[in-house]
């Protein structure tokens, strides 16, 4: 299932061989690939080459990739997928809070990258924000605040509904605990103290919409980071 509408991808990495296999693989799947090897060039090309998504390495020679992500986020909402050898949860949270959509640890397979790319790009498609979103046996009517599982209306609390809506509208993207807290509870301070609020709500939500709440297939946990809504089957 490839998307053949020649979406434009900007690949930012200082390693030539990494750019080269990304170009090969992305072009073969119908993407139009642009490259840059430095942060400054990436910031410039993120405007001039009108990319639809950016694949961004964190370890750039001239500046930290986090700064590049922040710089891009100031003016644009294009999906950013971070590549990095750093694998601590803290590093991922920092990148996601800086506005990145997803985070992939090197080494990774091109298949994994393509899947993540499709997921973040799906948000770009003229989305059914006012209509009914259907995922498997789940359907969400955004306009009418209605969630159905197997055609039966699920009884969600307003908070559960807010989280589900937030996750679905950002399907494919990892949302950090801080981002969820900010959007749903409108709180930004004291993350540790209210982390359990998110956990409990997610757990209740799963028991209402997941076929098997112990092995969720829609709302996936990113350990130490946050949650992601999974659209693909």
């Amino acid at each position, binding site marked *: 299932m490839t998307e053949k509408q020649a979406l434009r991808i900007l690949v930012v990495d200082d390693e030539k061989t990494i750019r*080269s296999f990304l170009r*090969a693989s992305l072009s073969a799947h119908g993407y139009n690939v642009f490259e840059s090897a430095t942060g400054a060039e990436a910031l410039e090309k993120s405007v001039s080459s009108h990319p639809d998504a950016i694949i961004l390495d964190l370890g750039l020679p001239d500046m930290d990739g986090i700064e590049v992500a922040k710089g891009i986020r100031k003016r644009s909402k294009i999906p950013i997928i971070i590549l990095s050898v750093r694998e601590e949860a803290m590093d991922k949270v920092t990148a996601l809070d800086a506005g990145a959509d997803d985070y992939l640890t090197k080494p990774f397979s091109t298949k994994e990258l393509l899947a993540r790319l499709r997921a973040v790009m799906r948000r770009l498609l003229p989305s059914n924000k006012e209509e009914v979103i259907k995922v498997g046996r789940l359907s969400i009517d955004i306009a009418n605040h209605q969630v159905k599982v197997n055609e039966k209306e699920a009884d969600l609390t307003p908070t559960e509904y807010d989280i589900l809506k937030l996750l679905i509208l950002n399907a494919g993207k990892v949302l950090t605990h801080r981002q969820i807290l900010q959007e749903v509870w409108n709180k930004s301070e004291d993350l540790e103290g209210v982390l359990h609020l998110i956990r409990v709500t997610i757990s209740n939500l799963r028991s209402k919409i997941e076929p098997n709440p112990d092995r969720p297939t829609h709302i996936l946990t990113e350990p130490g980071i946050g949650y992601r809504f999974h659209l693909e089957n």
Partner: protein
Amino acid sequence: MIIMQKTKNIREQIYPYLISIGLVLIMTLFGELVKRKLEPTNIVMFYLLAVVISAIRWGQGPAIVTSILSVLAFDFFLVPPYLTLSVASLQYIFTFIAFLIVGVVVSTLASKTREQLIQRQTEKLQSALLNSISHDLRTPLASITGSLTALLDSDSGLDDATRKELLENAFEESARLNRLVGNLLDMTIMEAGALRISRKPCELRDVLGASLEQLKEKIGPRNIRIDIPRDFPEVPMDFAFMMKVFFNLIDNALKYSSADTSIDIKATSIKHDVKIEITDQGIGIPKGDLKRIFEKFYRVERPQQITGTGLGLSICKGIIEAHGGQITAQNNRDRGATFIITIPLN
């Protein structure tokens, strides 16, 4: 077989004690100057300062030596009757004992603080090293994994040229990974003090020739000028390890200079040493980095296309020092850098 000499370590161990003795001497001279104006019990404070300095700087051992020497010097020179260890007034005995106790306590406290500081620095350094190693190992691995998974992806329909490029990618990066692992291994052996070199008389030409052969592809059409006098003596060295040294240095020279410049290798023998200079006409070494480039994992700010492990030069240094020699770097007057190796002939 020569095992890396420990003499340097011993010199480093004695040095703090010598400085401590020097400190006590300085305090005694100072005490001599003011002993008619100050009570001897006040002069004791200067000695206490010496104890604190050596405790913070070098730890407990030198500090305790400083304490004992201070009491002896104080008694001998500054407490009447002068120039004898006998004491006129009993109160000085209490001063001595109090000083010794205070000296030991202060030195223990100060050296503990110092140890904690060192430990914290070591931990920081270790985690920086680990990060650096993990970055250096994962980057080529990422290229290999990426290239191979792109090739394995049956949906992709890559053309032949791209397939070849990806295979070459994977091959090149495997070689890079192999070099890195080799360097890390060498480094570990060196750190453990287990580097065993066997010095046998070698023709410098042969060693250089073998290194150049390994670098054949990278050198390509580039001009490498070798200047070795006809009567140049055979040098006692470990062929395989010296090959690594020349490989690293010439590889660096190639990397940091443009393709149209030449690289000069010049050998001279001076009395009991031989000197080998490798000169490029490249971008040179940033001034502040000249000393640090031999530290492991240290890398200068460099153009983005130049890759490296940050280990090559520190390995060179380890090998040359195991030969009893020295390696230094300097910038040329016009452009580029020169690495100078000296190796003793005996």
